[in-house]
């Protein structure tokens, strides 16, 4: 049996369905992420798990016990809040001791467990500091330690890294992964940052407008998005709308207006005339000055309309002869050059027939 079972949960605010009949289950020991844009219902779902909000219908079962009806203070679930919500009038150790005190743990045990928790998050020696005397990353660790010290069955994290700068965020991601393994507590993580979700999670539920669009492992979500929304939201993706023109064994021809015929892998149940979208990641597209001798089945000519130089890679936005723009990514790895093309350069873009992923409309 799953640790947490969400069954047909809905939550409306007036006419707006923040969470629309969601069912999912989270296994013990999992690092599970709810990913989606703001307003997709991920925070509402998290708040219902924590007990700060109640579903209009449906059940939330933890270890088979319905949580609806038990207030947040009685749920074996703890939250790391977005801005940490550390108690400013208490020291680090008093903050971490707080949940133990509420649970009436004896004082000598509290001391031991606070020390242990500080060790877990590598903050030994900071016990007597106040939150305002800590850096952002240290505060984040105190918040995690405070939420973990009472050994909840479930740890909820509400965009806990969004207040940190990019470099620190990467470091904290690694720490969170290690910590989760170490304490062996189920993490439910909420974020709008797809990179973070891909890096951290065992499984991701991509949410949109109160629904779960796709629930899968990170690599499958990235490579095989099930809907146009998922393809677009996770990473960048070229979305080519078209209809199936012909099917021939493992390959098919897709008629994309503004581009032409595109050879692609055959999806299940393919039939001529069916419409859909080909999702094509920029890094799967080769870009070169002339048609090379590679084996790519699809070649299109165009010119560089815009480019974004990112240091390690350059993103080229190529306008094809038919008027469609396609984004291609090229690593700046060749020795002795900074980048390969300039705006206005004529280029050839190419991809193999199985580079993309076809989504039915």
């Amino acid at each position: 049996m799953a640790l947490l079972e969400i069954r047909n949960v809905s939550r409306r605010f007036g006419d707006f369905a923040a969470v629309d009949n969601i069912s999912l289950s989270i296994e013990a020991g999992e690092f599970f992420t709810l990913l989606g844009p703001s307003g997709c219902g991920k925070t509402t779902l998290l708040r219902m798990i924590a007990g700060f909000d109640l579903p209009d219908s449906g059940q939330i079962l933890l270890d088979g016990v319905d949580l609806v009806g038990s207030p947040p203070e009685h749920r074996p679930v703890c939250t790391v809040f977005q801005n940490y919500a550390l108690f400013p009038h208490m020291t680090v150790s008093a903050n971490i001791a707080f949940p133990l005190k509420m649970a009436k743990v004896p004082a000598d045990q509290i001391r031991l467990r606070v020390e242990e928790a500080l060790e877990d998050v590598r903050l030994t020696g900071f016990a007597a500091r106040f939150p305002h005397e800590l850096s952002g990353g240290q505060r984040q660790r105190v918040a995690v330690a405070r939420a973990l010290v009472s050994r909840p069955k479930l740890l909820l994290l509400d965009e806990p890294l969004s207040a940190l700068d990019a470099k620190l965020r990467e470091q904290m991601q690694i720490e969170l992964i290690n910590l989760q393994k170490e304490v062996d507590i189920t993490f439910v993580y909420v974020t709008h940052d797809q990179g973070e979700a891909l890096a951290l999670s065992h499984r991701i539920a991509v949410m949109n407008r109160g629904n779960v669009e796709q629930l899968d492992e990170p690599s499958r979500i990235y490579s095989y998005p099930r809907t146009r929304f998922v393809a677009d939201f996770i990473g960048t993706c070229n979305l080519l709308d078209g209809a199936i023109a012909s099917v021939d064994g493992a390959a098919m021809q897709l008629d994309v207006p503004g581009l032409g015929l595109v050879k692609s892998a055959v999806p299940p149940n393919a039939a001529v005339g069916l419409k859909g979208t080909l999702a094509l990641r920029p890094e799967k597209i080769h870009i070169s000055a002339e048609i090379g001798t590679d084996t790519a089945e699809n070649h299109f000519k165009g010119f560089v309309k815009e480019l974004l130089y990112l240091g390690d890679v350059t993103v080229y936005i190529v306008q094809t002869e038919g008027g469609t723009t396609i984004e291609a990514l090229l690593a700046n790895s060749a020795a002795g050059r900074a980048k390969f093309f300039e705006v206005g350069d004529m280029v050839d873009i190419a991809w193999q027939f199985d580079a993309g992923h076809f989504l039915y409309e």
Partner: protein
Amino acid sequence: MSKAAINDADKRGRLARWLISGPPLFYLLLFFAIPSLIMVFASVRYAGDYGGLAPVFDEAGKLNLTLENFQRFTSDFIYTAIFLKSLMYAVITTCCCLLMAYPLALLIARSPKKYRDLLILLVILPFWSNFLIRVYAWMIILGPQSGLTQAVNYVLGLVGIEPVRLLFTAFSVIVGLVYVHLPFMVLPLYANLEKHDPALVDAAQDLGASAWQRFWRITFPLSLPGVYAGAALVFIPALGIFAVSDILGGTGSDMIGNVIKQQFLETRDWPFGSVLSIVLTVAALIAAGIAVLVARPRRETHG
């Protein structure tokens, strides 16, 4: 920027600071510091024959100063007693104001944002009518013919207690004092509570704190600066006020303010009035000092 330019900018900044803080400083000097010094000086002089002050130099040209007025305060216990009673009234008033204002301020701070300004406006609404008129209104409310008095006496009669008088008692004075000072407690408390991050209370609840624990361990300690500010704003004026006890008090409920007023306007003993004023000022300063000391953030190590 060159060193000289930095110095110039520094000078300009200092000049601007003086220009801004100058007028209020001057005002305080003129209307607080100097009168206080005059009062201290008056306290060591003799009273004039027909009120006012006797000349500083007598006919023989000798300095005509004395500490008699202070001796009178320390030797006659009645003044200390009145002073202690005023202190007690002020303490009771401060406590009652705190107990009544806290829930109100919390309620306003936690109500939807669009109503908060309106609710605060209602709190200060009484300021729009004259203070004395509002205190006189309490004479009617607490008077022997009032519905309140009759209701109280009816209930007392049921359990066999003699009827009581509400007006012109210590009770009516404290009712008046609490009524007059309540907004001064609500405003600083609200200003503090309104700034609290609601996530803190959520976090406490998430970590297992009951409603009472959330208040007592999170909301209340964080609101202490507001409590101290409100207490000082109520206690200090309540200690020196005379109008409320004049109007609502009986013969036995005079406060130190009443005695000072009598010394200046009725007995016409300015030096002794000055002595009492000094005692009052010192007491107020001590109270303010205590508030500042207690309000200093402390390090809470284990909750």
